[in-house]
């Protein structure tokens, strides 16, 4: 019984870490990637008088951050239920 609890908790944690890693890849991709490092590559995509990289730096990355947190909170609620580890 105790061993079951332990492996259940470990599986929950593993799923959580995988979810976090996925979200952080997106987080880094939009901010450090699209907005900074890859901006020259996106220069050919025009957005209202400038390019896509500029839009990501001043609007897009912030909007993505919000979506990421809500997605994470929603997925974690599902995981809490699935593994029976919620409150």
């Amino acid at each position, binding site marked *: 019984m105790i061993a079951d609890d332990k492996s259940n*908790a470990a599986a*929950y*944690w593993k799923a*959580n*870490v995988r979810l*976090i890693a996925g*979200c*952080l890849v997106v*987080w880094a991709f939009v*901010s*450090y990637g699209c*907005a*900074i*490092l890859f*901006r*020259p590559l996106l220069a050919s995509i025009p*957005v*209202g*008088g*400038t*390019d896509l*990289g*500029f*839009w990501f*730096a*001043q*609007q897009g*990355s*912030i*909007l993505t*951050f*919000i979506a*990421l*947190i*809500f997605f*994470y*909170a929603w997925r*974690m*609620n599902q995981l*809490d239920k699935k*593994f*029976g*580890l*919620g*409150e």
Partner: protein
Amino acid sequence: MSQFAINLLFVGASFALYIGIAIWARAGSTKDFYVAGGGVHPVTNGMATAADWMSAASFISMAGLIASGGYANSTFLMGWTGGFVILAMLLAPYLRKFGKFTVPDFIGERFYSRTARVVAVACLIIASVTYVIGQMTGAGVAFSRFLEVPSTWGIWIAAAIVFLYAVFGGMKGITYTQVAQYIVLIVAYTIPAVFIAMQLTGNPIPGLGMFSTHTESGVPLLQKLDDVVNALGFQDYTADVDNKLNMVLFTLSLMIGTAGLPHVIIRFFTVPKVADARWSAGWALVFIALLYLTAPAVASMARLNLMTTVYPEMTGQVEDYEVAAAEPILYADRPAWFQTWEDTGLIVYNDANDDGRIQFYNDTNEGFTETAEGRGWAGNELTVNNDILVLANPEIANLPGWVIGLIAAGGIAAALSTAAGLLLAISSAISHDLIKNTINPNISEKGEMLAARISMGGAILLATYLGLNPPGFAAQTVALAFGIAAASLFPVLMMGIFSTRMNSTGAICGMLAGLVATLLYIFTYLGWFFIPGTNMLANTPDNWFIGISPLSFGAVGAMINFAVAFAVSSVTAAPPREIQELVESVRYPKGAGIAVDH
């Protein structure tokens, strides 16, 4: 009614509201004082976190920095919002599960060490006090400008107000006061921005307006702005930057600094459930984004308005050669707001070529020198302080007096709410972590509350004193606060949750290594303890270690912290079994207390 009376009315009314709420919600028990009884709804808590987070730097200063730096200063926008993603996933839910009152509480118990707790208290106090100094100065400047009193008085007034509601209200008072402050500051920021976006682009949403067509000229607003600044020798507003490494590290420093700042973390102890901590971070970012999505629009539109105020011929549907030949206005014809701000010394005009006109151009651009000389210009004649941009925005756009009064109240709300949140973090670290858990464990609940209030008063006096005698480098002070939080607190908090193997020796060495390395790097370029003239190297990009500015070093400090902690921890004994079990239990929400007592 004079503008002065309107300002007084708005600022006075907003204060009456905050103080009223603080009295209504007066804290009863110790737990109420620190964490609002563990019963704050995630949306409410998100709003209060947003007010806590957005300081005078966000409200007053940031749009001005973006206006002058253009794309390069997008770092502030991403850095000060992206940190909430890290908070929501890597820290907030687990710290809420752990169920302690303060950040050093967590570090002290997780690393089963009094030394770790005391080092954490030191990091927290250094980071928070430096941050408060900037807020006090900011509030002082805003008061003195709008209430027309000397800036010294402004700072004392600010100190008195903070003292009243932070000391008598505690966290619960602050939570609801901060909700009110958030509403005041977001309304104050948005209304002028909407008016200006309508004027320039016909689009009432500023964040969309900045990417739309500039009505008068028929070209996209940002392209118009590039054309205008380019014709005067300035760098294109949307120009890319060369030093990408520094831009990445600066953004990273601001992000992990956000996640490591104690006054933000402490907010997540106040929600009823672990799941609420995650939602709460999301809501906080929604409320923050309302300002942060508007700020870049305010920046680009204010820059364009400023340029076309000085060069009216540049507006409208004009050809490139007409833009290039546009004459600046006569000094005698300058608008009224221009004169108001000249009185504060934040706009300075100096007629270098004695022609009575305001030549405003980039005289440090060598490629532009020939053009300027050809037109008989003898150097740039106008200096505009970045920090006035948001405050002057309604005046530049000719908005009614009540909007100006509103923005005064908003700026002051931003500065005070952050100062109060930081002071609470400082006072709880001293009374709770230092006195109750280290020096005198037998202190009564009453005694602990008294100690919290005394240390809060002491911290206010210290910050006011330093605010009255400012070291003269507001931007560096704020960056130092972020650097310290990023390099010292964030890594150990994260390792405390994500590594069961991390032990106390590793954590202590990591914190100290990150803190010391960051401080040394900053002091090398900015002077020992910021005393001018004591810096060992000039603060220029050529001298920086592989192009990393002192402002960006917090990210490197954090990496040093991680590396040292793992190295030391791997050669010393693993933490005791019950600590490893504790870490595992922090990882899932089941069994979280309401707001755990000691």
